[in-house]
C-alpha cells in the first residue's frame, strides 16, 4: 500500500513539474514596427538640445531650441527619407541635413544591442530604440524617441541624432519630427 501511495505521490510531482504548454501563451499580436516605418517621411520640425544645459537643468530657452527655420534658404522641410524593407533612400534638397546623413540609397536595420528596448518594442510600448543606417559607407544611428504619433491619421515619427566629437564625447542632440507622406 505504501509503495502505491509513494508512487502516486511521485507521479503527481513529476506531472506538475514536467508539464508545460507547447507554445507560450500570448495576448494579441505584436506590433509590427517594420511595417510602421515603411513609407516616405518628410521633416516637419527640428529641435536642437544643448546637452550640457540639459544636464544642468538650465531654463528651456537655453536647453532646447526650435531650429526648423534657423538657417535662411536652407529649409529642413526639403529633407525626404524613403524607407522600404531593408533599404533607405534620402534626398537632402536644400536642407542642412547633409551635416548629419549622406544623400542616396543605402540600407537600414534595427539597433539590436539593447535588450530592454527590444523587449519594449515587442510589447508595442513607447521605447527608446533606433535604426542603423548606411548610405554611401556612412553609418548613422537614428534613435526613436517615441512611437506616439506613429498610428495617427498622418503618422509622425520622432527621431533623434546625437552628435559626438572626435573624442567620443556627446555634444548636442537633434530631434526631428517627420510626417509620413
Amino acid at each position, binding site marked *: 500500500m505504501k509503495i502505491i501511495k509513494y508512487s502516486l505521490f511521485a507521479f503527481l510531482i513529476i506531472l506538475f513539474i514536467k508539464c508545460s504548454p507547447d507554445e507560450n501563451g500570448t495576448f494579441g499580436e505584436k506590433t509590427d514596427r517594420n511595417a510602421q516605418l515603411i513609407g516616405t517621411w518628410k521633416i516637419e520640425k527640428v529641435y*536642437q*538640445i*544643448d*546637452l*550640457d*544645459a540639459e*544636464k*544642468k*537643468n*538650465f*531654463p528651456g*530657452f*537655453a536647453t532646447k*531650441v526650435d*531650429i526648423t527655420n*534657423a*538657417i*535662411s534658404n536652407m529649409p529642413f522641410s526639403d529633407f525626404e527619407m524613403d524607407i522600404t524593407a531593408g533599404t533607405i533612400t534620402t534626398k537632402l534638397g536644400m536642407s*542642412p541635413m547633409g*551635416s*548629419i546623413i549622406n544623400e542616396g540609397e543605402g540600407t537600414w536595420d534595427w539597433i539590436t544591442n539593447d535588450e530592454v528596448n527590444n523587449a519594449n518594442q515587442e510589447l508595442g510600448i513607447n521605447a527608446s530604440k533606433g535604426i542603423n543606417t548606411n548610405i554611401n559607407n*556612412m*553609418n*548613422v544611428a537614428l534613435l526613436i524617441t517615441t512611437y506616439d504619433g506613429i498610428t495617427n491619421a498622418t503618422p509622425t515619427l520622432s527621431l533623434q541624432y546625437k*552628435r*559626438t*566629437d*572626435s*573624442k*567620443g564625447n556627446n*555634444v*548636442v542632440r537633434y530631434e526631428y519630427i517627420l510626417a509620413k507622406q
Partner: protein
Amino acid sequence: MKKLITYICIFYATVIFAQDPLVTGTPSNYTVIDENVTLTFDVTNATDNGGNSLVGKDLYIWAFSNAADSKANGDWTNIKAAARLNKISDTEYTLKFPITDGAETYNTFAEMFGVEAAPGSITSIGYLLRDQAPTFQTDDLTIPFSPFKFDAAEVRTFPSSATTKDILLLRFNKSFTPLSNPALTGAENISVHVEPVGNSTSAVDLKTIKNGRYFETGIIPSITFETIDTMGDLKELKYYFFDTDNPSIKSVEGSIILKKSGI
C-alpha cells in the same frame, strides 16, 4: 546640591559647545560635476547624536542626496572602505575626489550618487558621520555645494558647445542690462559679424531676426567657412553684433571654440 549644579553646568556646556562638523570645500565654490574636490571636516567641537566628541575617532561618511544614496556607502552594517574619511589630524578629516571604490572611481559627487547623466537633479546632499560598526553616528547633516546657475549674457551661442558641423545660433539679448554699448538699445535692425580666429578675411556679416528674447541667426560653420574647415583650420569663431544701419555701434565680442565632429 553642589554635584547637581556641576552636572547641570556640564550638561549646558555640552549643549552650548556641541557643534556639527564644519565642512569646507576646496575649491570653495564647487558644483556636483567638479573634479578634484576635497571636503574638509573640522570636528573640533563636533559630537555624535549621543553627545560624545568625534575628536580622534575613526570616521566614515554615510552620504545621501535627494536623487540617490552614495554608491560608496555599501550596507549600513557593512560600510565600504571607500566611505572612510582620511584622518589628517585628530580634529581634521577629508573626503577627497576621485574616490576609489573597488574597480570603480567616482570623480565627482554626481558620479558618487550615480547620476552623472543628470547632475542637475541633485538639489541637496546629506550625510552623517559614524564609525565602521557602527557604534555611534551623528545626526543627519548637510554638505553645501554651488547649484548650477544659468548666467544671462549680452551675447551667446546656442548650443554653448558645438562641432563645426552643428547648427550654431548666434544670439544677442538686447534686453540685457547693462548693455556693453547702450547705443544698441535704439537699433531696429541688428546684424552679426562672424570671424574665424586667425582668418579675418573670411569674416561674414549676417542679418539677424528677432526670436523671443534674442536677435539671432544660424550658421553651420563647416558650410559658412568651408574652405577653412577643409584645411582643418576652423577651430574658433569670434563674433559681435552691430546696428545694421550704423555699423560703428557694436556689442561686446563673444567667441566659441569649435570641436571636431566624430563623423
